């Protein structure tokens, strides 16, 4: 008799186990679907968006370009046509449309270079920055004011009037020198402009972050 009861209990136990299995499998079906979470959390992205420390001023950028700082990479997010018309030296053109395309991913998603995104103003550059930041790309910055600001400050610096403080004059001379570096010639130069230092060809090799694919087999 006892044997029978034990067998009875065991059957019940198996039924319970089978029930659990069905509930677990069924649970999967009933759980609400949701869009796979891509990129960093919205709260985190919002705090990154608000903080202005992604901006880089035109003076700082001019300084970087003149000293040929190797760790900077310029990316112009405007379309090809305005890129060919004028763009900063050694810049790469990634139009906003093709920002997330496969072959440009090597430039954006790497941690060797400080990337500087810029467009005419920093509207499109900001948009590109926010999307890349959502995908957690490292050390990207945006040129404050874009090419317009670059023109107003570096290429065609405003002459300080007499009652401006001394720094304004220093800033003006720095900017004038910078504009000469970038090709603007000034009439009151007495001697012929010294042969402009050729911007050395800088080869940027972007080392891809190796993500080993899960290979497997039998």
């Amino acid at each position, binding site marked *: 008799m006892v044997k029978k009861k034990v067998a009875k209990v065991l059957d019940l136990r*198996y039924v319970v*186990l089978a029930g659990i299995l069905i509930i677990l499998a069924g649970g999967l079906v009933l759980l609400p679907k949701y869009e796979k979470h891509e990129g960093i959390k919205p709260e985190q992205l919002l705090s990154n968006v608000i903080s202005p420390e992604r901006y880089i001023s035109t003076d700082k950028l001019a300084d970087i370009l003149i000293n040929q700082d190797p760790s900077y990479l310029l990316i112009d997010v405007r379309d090809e046509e305005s890129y060919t018309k004028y763009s900063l030296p050694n810049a790469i053109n990634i139009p906003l449309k093709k920002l997330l395309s496969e072959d440009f991913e090597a430039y954006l998603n790497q941690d060797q270079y400080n990337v500087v995104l810029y467009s005419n103003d920093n509207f499109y550059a900001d948009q590109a920055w926010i999307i890349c930041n959502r995908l957690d790309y490292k050390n990207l910055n945006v040129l404050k004011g874009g090419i317009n600001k670059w023109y107003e400050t570096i290429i065609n610096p405003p002459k300080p009037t007499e009652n401006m403080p001394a720094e304004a004059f220093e800033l003006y001379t720095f900017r004038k020198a910078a504009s000469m570096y970038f090709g603007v010639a000034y009439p009151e130069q007495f001697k012929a402009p010294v042969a402009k230092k050729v911007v050395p060809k800088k080869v940027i090799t972007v080392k891809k972050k190796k993500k080993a694919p*899960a*290979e*497997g*087999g*039998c």
Partner: protein
Amino acid sequence: MKNNQKNRHVYWNPYFGGFLFGILILLTFYITGRGIGASGAMKSSVVTIVDTVAPTHAENNAYYSKFISDEKSPMNTWLVFEALGVLIGAFISGGLTGRISWRVQHSPKITSKRRLVFALGGGILFGLGAQIARGCTSGAALSGMAVLSTGGFITMLAIFGSAFAFAYFFRKNWI
């Protein structure tokens, strides 16, 4: 030794074994991103043997050359280490339950010689089939099913389907 001898034929509850096996497959996928396997180890050993015995032949044979790479010996693959682990694990489990002893397990009706002949034949067939289907029951079928791979399911159905179909011919060996 008496107690050890007693539970020689007492195995785990299959559901418990299956459950642990399922968790193991989950763990393997979670850590390495790939399933488990077995016949890959045999393949690597064959490739190493042929490579050491006749390297030139191995070089220009289309199949061997796939697995021979100069900087890494074929034995240095994931599956070979895993097969090594299987041997050790089985030895431990066998030791705990006292099942370790040199013997040929065969149904009382047949002689051990016939059993060995069938084992050899079965092995050759299985080795051939495993290469064609790129995986065996644990490699292709089970690991494939864990990620719903169509190939895994087809292989599993083919293996068990044909096994059931041909079971009738080999019934004298087992029952």
